């Protein structure tokens, strides 16, 4: 209290400013979410890659004597399901499919949607109108219903899950990108690039894209979580990966019949989804900090 009373205004100001300076200085701390997120994702990728080394049983191997064994049963770290299959093993092998969907589905829609948004935003006029009306068409349908309809038509399989996501989720990227490009193309450096006789492709890819891509890249992290959740939801509805192939959503769906007696069948696949979700979300946050130059 006394220090407060005796401190001169300039000292107070100095202290406040140095506090702020300290916050700005801690670049490492600002990178922390990104580092943790990448570390968690690396753990997940390593675990699913080396699944055979980390598990004692194959994912579809049935231990007839031990159905619905609780966690920490010898030989079954996370217990077994109704057929006596090892839950830990099924989570690791199932993760291969879920992460493949996260990366495979998201990367294609990211690239496709970004290019379409770039073209629409840069050229404007008729091209923009046509592309954006197509986007509107997709947005007009409830997203999940559209996906379910596509899979119901094509039949449930991993490839068809990919196809359904590729067909439907580029639209969000296209919209975000278009909005960014419309702002960026009015910048003087774009005019200057055109005044130097650069081709339109060059202006788009080298001058506009690097200045606008941060938003879609950050969004793609959120979208990757969404795609895992979507795969899980489809699995839960029986439209996803078909048994006996392990997949987190399918596992949760299978476990719901036993939820009162064998909680581990639903809890652990759920935690796996949360684990990967948190990893992507931290990476998205971290990237936003690193890629957005305005915050620096």
């Amino acid at each position, binding site marked *: 209290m006394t220090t407060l009373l005796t401190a001169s205004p300039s000292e107070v100001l100095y202290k406040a400013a140095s506090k702020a300076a300290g916050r700005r200085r801690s670049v490492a701390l600002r990178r922390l979410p990104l580092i943790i997120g990448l570390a968690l994702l690396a753990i997940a990728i390593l675990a699913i890659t080396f699944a055979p080394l980390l598990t004692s049983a194959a994912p579809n191997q049935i231990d007839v004597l031990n159905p619905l064994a609780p966690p920490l049963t010898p030989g079954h770290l996370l217990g077994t399901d109704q057929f006596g299959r090892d839950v830990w093993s099924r989570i690791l092998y199932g993760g291969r499919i879920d992460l493949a969907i996260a990366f495979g589905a998201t990367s294609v829609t990211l690239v496709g949607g970004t290019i379409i948004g770039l073209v629409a935003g840069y050229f*404007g*006029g008729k091209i923009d109108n046509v592309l954006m009306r197509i986007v509107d068409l997709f947005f007009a349908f409830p997203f999940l219903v559209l996906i379910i309809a596509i899979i119901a038509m094509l039949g449930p399989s991993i490839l068809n899950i990919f196809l359904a996501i590729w067909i439907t989720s580029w639209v969000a990227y296209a919209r975000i990108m278009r909005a960014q490009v419309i702002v960026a193309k009015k*910048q*003087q*450096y774009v*005019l*200057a*690039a*055109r*005044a*130097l*006789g*650069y*081709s*339109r492709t060059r202006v788009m890819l*080298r*001058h506009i894209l*690097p*200045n606008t891509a941060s938003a879609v890249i950050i969004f793609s992290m959120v979208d990757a979580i969404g795609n895992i959740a979507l795969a899980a939801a489809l699995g839960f509805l029986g439209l996803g990966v078909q048994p006996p192939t392990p997949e987190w959503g399918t596992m949760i769906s299978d476990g719901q019949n036993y939820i009162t007696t064998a909680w581990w069948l639903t809890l652990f696949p759920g935690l796996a989804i949360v684990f990967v979700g948190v990893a992507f979300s931290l990476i998205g946050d971290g990237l936003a900090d690193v890629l957005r*130059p305005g915050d620096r």
Partner: protein
Amino acid sequence: MIPAEPTGPGVPAGPGLPPVEPGLPGQTAPPPDAELAELAGAGLETGEEAAPVPDPEVAEAVLAPVASSAVGTPLLTVEDLRTYLATGHGVVRAVDGVSFSLAQAEVLGIVGESGCGKSVTCRTIMGLVPKSLGHSNGRVIYHPRGEGSLLDASQNQWQALRGSQLAMIFQDPMTALNPVLTVGEQLLEAVNAHAKLTRAEAQARAVELLRRVGIPAPQRRMRDYPFQFSGGMLQRALIAIALASSPRLLLADEPTTSLDVIIQDQILSLLLELQQDTGMSMILVSHDLAVITEVCDRIIVMYAGQVVEQGRAATIITEPRHPYTRALLGALPQAGHQGELPSIPGHPPSLIDPPAGCRFAPRCPLVTDKCLTWETELLDAGGDGHLARCWRHEEVARQGPAQQGTEVQ
């Protein structure tokens, strides 16, 4: 294409050639010795950096004369150029019947208040007005290309012309460079845009261009991002980029407006020096008549999308024949002037629905009834290509040049 000669420390300076200034007077550039020591200490390859004084021969080679033999022949002719822009409020007649011609190695000034169509004229000449935004007619003839109008050029033809033949520098250097690429990357891109050069040749040419526009330690500055440059340095870098392919016509759209007065003067001197070295033609746009008269051979005064007066710079300063030019001259601030700065009352008319008759009439001290109705045209005023869009130009001429710093009316 001009070969960018790889240089070494052993290349002797030509005895008859003027020395090129290594740094900039008044800038915080390190002296050449310090720069050299620093570079040696940093262990950088010494190639051209080792030369204590930049080699004039090299500077000459990088920006060699474009067409020294053809001085005086026309390079660009603009005939009855109109560019109408579509806005939410209506059609803006931003450029409304502008004609002029530009000779090889000539420096033409375009002056006028903001919103008089100067920049749109430049952008139309460069084909940078998007079709969705505006339409142009009239003719823009770039003579080396033949007698066809540039307005009819295809996208590919434009791409071949821009940068290599016509180049443009912009008002605000802070935003005219891509923030995510280094200055060097952008300069190399420009160097490679219209020429087939090896990596080493392109690099050497880029460094030499930066040196030529007066950027100290160019090899090191190549790696900097635009935000690491000051405004004046950025404008120098932009000039280097614009000149990367040795264009024959440079359009400078208010190149010094966003810079402080001292840097302004340096940039103008640099532009003029480069223009004289290369023999390129230049159109300098400014709202500052003082800037224009310092540099240009001929002046075009624009008002409300039209040319109101054009002629030799010296004639226009001493014998303005349009009340608007006279008023602009009168509005120039003068050292030692006391009291309120003189200004032109009123503001330029809306170009959506410009007034009939003379567009300057509402602000003109000499306005008569005839001014409000006559079909304005550029009248021959005193010969020697001096034209004025005022039927009372004889009277204006008799009034003599406006007393600088005094009330116009």
